[in-house]
C-alpha cells in the first residue's frame, strides 16, 4: 500500500459514516396507527398540538416526538397520571444524524405498574441546543443528562450540577459524539498528551472541591500542594 493510499484510508476514517440528507427517523408529522398503545392515544388527545410525530419502530416499539419546549410538562404527566404511571426512566440519550439535522434527545420510559415501555423524542435545532432538565422528576436523570451534555453539548436548563462526566471537567476539544467531531480528536497527539499529563491542581479538582479544601486562614488552596497530598 502506498503512502497516498494509506492517507486516503485514514481520511475516510476521519470523515466518519456517510449519511444521507433525506428525512430519516425524524418527526415528519406522520402519525402511525396509535391503537396498539394506550399512552400514545392519550398523549395525542391531551397534548395533540405538541406531538409532532409518532411511529412504530422495530415491530412493537412506539416512539412519539414531542415539542421540546413542553418536555417537562409531558413527562410529568406521563409519570403521575393514574392510567400511565411511567415511574421508571430507563435511559436518556441523544442522537446526532449529522448533515446539519437537528439533534434528538431520547427518553426511554417504563411503567413498572402497567409493564409498558414508551419512547419520547425531542428535536433540538443545532442553534438552540437547550431543553429543560427532568432531574426534578427522576433523580436518575442527573448523570444521564450530564452524559448527554458532555458528549453532545445539549444544555439542560435548571440541572443542579451540569458539568462534564466522562471527559475531564476542563476538556476543551468539544463534544465527542457529535458527527462533526473527528474520531481522533481535534488537538494534535502531542497536545492531547500534554493536557492529559497536566498535573495542576485545577485539572484534578472541580471548583466546588477547591472551595472545600481551602484553608479559611490562608488564601491559597491547601490541597494538592507538596506538604499535603490532598
Amino acid at each position, binding site marked *: 500500500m502506498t503512502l497516498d493510499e494509506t492517507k486516503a484510508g485514514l481520511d475516510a*476514517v476521519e470523515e*466518519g*459514516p456517510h*449519511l*444521507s440528507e433525506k428525512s*430519516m*427517523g425524524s418527526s415528519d408529522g406522520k402519525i402511525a396507527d396509535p391503537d396498539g398503545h394506550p399512552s400514545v392515544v392519550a398523549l395525542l388527545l391531551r397534548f395533540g398540538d405538541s406531538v409532532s410525530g409518532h*411511529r412504530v*419502530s*422495530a*415491530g412493537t*416499539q412506539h*416512539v412519539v416526538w414531542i415539542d421540546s419546549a413542553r418536555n417537562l410538562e409531558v413527562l410529568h404527566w406521563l409519570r403521575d397520571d393514574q392510567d400511565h404511571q411511567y*415511574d*421508571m*426512566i*430507563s*435511559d436518556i*440519550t441523544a*442522537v*446526532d*444524524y449529522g448533515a446539519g439535522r437537528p439533534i434528538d434527545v*431520547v427518553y*426511554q420510559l*417504563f411503567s*413498572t405498574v402497567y*409493564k409498558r*415501555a414508551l*419512547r419520547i423524542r425531542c428535536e433540538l435545532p443545532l442553534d438552540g441546543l437547550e431543553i429543560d432538565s427532568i432531574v426534578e422528576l*427522576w*433523580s*436518575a436523570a*442527573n*448523570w*444521564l443528562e450530564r*452524559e448527554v451534555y458532555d*458528549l453532545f453539548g445539549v444544555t439542560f436548563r435548571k440541572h443542579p450540577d451540569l458539568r*462534564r*462526566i*466522562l*471527559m*475531564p471537567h476542563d476538556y476543551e476539544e468539544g463534544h*465527542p*459524539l457529535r458527527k462533526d*467531531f473527528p*474520531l481522533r480528536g481535534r488537538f494534535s497527539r502531542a497536545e492531547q498528551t500534554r493536557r492529559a499529563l497536566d498535573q495542576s491542581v485545577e485539572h484534578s*479538582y*472541580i471548583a*466546588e*472541591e477547591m472551595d*472545600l*479544601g481551602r484553608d*479559611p486562614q490562608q488564601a491559597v488552596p491547601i*490541597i494538592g500542594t507538596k506538604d499535603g497530598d*490532598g
Partner: protein
Amino acid sequence: MSKRTVEFNVGRNPEMGVDGSVVDSPIFPFDMPEPDLGTENMLINIGPQHPATHGVLRLVCELDGETVKRVIPHIGYLHSSFEKLGEYRTWNQIVPLTDRMDYLAPLIYNCVYVMTVEKLMGIEVTERCKVVRVICMEMDRIFSHLLWLGTTAIDVGAFTPFLYAFQERERIYQLHEAFTGARITTSATRVGGMMADLPEGWTNGLQDFLDTFPKTLEEIDRLLTRNQIHIGRSQGIGAISAEDAINSGFTGANLRACGVDYDVRKDQPYYDYETYDFEIPVGQYGDCYDRYLCRMEEMRQSVSLLRQALERLPGGPIDVEDPNISLPSKTDCMSDMESMIHHFKLITEGIPAPEGDCYMPIEGSKGELGMYIVAEEGGTKPVRWRIRPPSLVNLSVLPKLAEEHLVSDLVMINASLDIVLGEIDR
C-alpha cells in the same frame, strides 16, 4: 475527629458511655465550657487507584471526623468512546467492543448487542441459538456475581470466600475458553447466530460445574450469611426505600433488595424466559445485606435455569439460514460460486438494516442492560449505538446512600452496588 475530641465527649456527658455505662473518669471537669477546637470538614481523595473502588473510580469525600458528609464521584478514567467507535464499524465488527465493556460478564454483553440488532432487523434466530444464548447469559450471571461476592467479602475482611469464589470462576473461564477460545474477550455472538456451535462435550463440562458449584455456594453461604462481622458491616448500611430506588434509577439486584420485584426477564420477557421455572428474590430493607442475599439467591436460580436450559437444548442449526445474514461454511465458499459471492458481499459490505431505532433491555448481571440502536435505511453501520449502562445509573446513587455513614461503610456500600468501571466509562 482527633482522639482527644472523642475522649472529651465521652467524659463530658456521664450518661453517654461507649457501652451504655456511666463513665466516671472525666478527663475534663463537667462544668468546663466546651473549648473551641476549630474542627473543620476534611477533604479526602479516594482513588482512582484504590482496591476498594473496584476499578478506576475516584471519590472525593468531605468528611466530618470519620463521617461522610458528601461524596463527589469522578468517573471517565477508562473512557474509550466505544459508542463513537461503533459508528465506524459494521454490525458484526462491533461485537468485540461489547465484551470489553463488562469484562466480568462478557457473554451477556455479546448477546444483548446482537439481540438488539436482530430485533431492529426483524431476524428470528433458531431455537437452538436461543437456548445457547440463555445458557451463556445465565452462566455469566453466576460468573459476575461470584466476582462481586469475592471482592465484597474481602472488602469487609473475609478472605476465604474470595478464594472459593475465584476457584469456581476459574471453571467458568475454562468453559468460556472451550467454547470461544478466549477467557474474557469472548466475542461469541454474530448477528443471526453464534460464532460457532457448542463444541462436543461442552455441555458435559457445564453439567459438571452445575453438579458441584451449589456445594461451594452453600459453603460460602455458611461463611457469610450468619457471620456476625459481615452482618454488622452490612445490615442497615446504605439503605434506600423502594420509591427512592425506582426514582433514582436503581435496577437489578440493587432494586430488588428494596422489595420491588422488577426483573426484565419477567416483565419484558425475551428468549422464552416466561416458559422457564424460576423465581425473583426480593429483599425488604434495601440495605447492603439484602443486596447480598438477593445476589446469592440469584445464583441459585441461575443454576436451576441452566439445568432447565440444558434439558431443553434442541438440535438443529445454530445460525439462521439466510445467506444475506449468516456466513456460509468454508467448504461451501471454496466449492460453490453462490456462497462465495454471499461471503464476499457480507464481508465487504455488511448486513443492510432497515430505517428506525430500537431499544432492547435485558436483565444483565448488574441491572437493566439496554442497547439503543439507530439505523438509516440500508445502513451497514449504526448511526447511533448507545448502551444503557446499569452500573452508571446505580453508581449515581452512591452519594445519597453514603451520606452520614462512616468511611469504612462507604467502602461496603460501593462494593454492594456491584459496579464495573469498564461499562460505566465505556
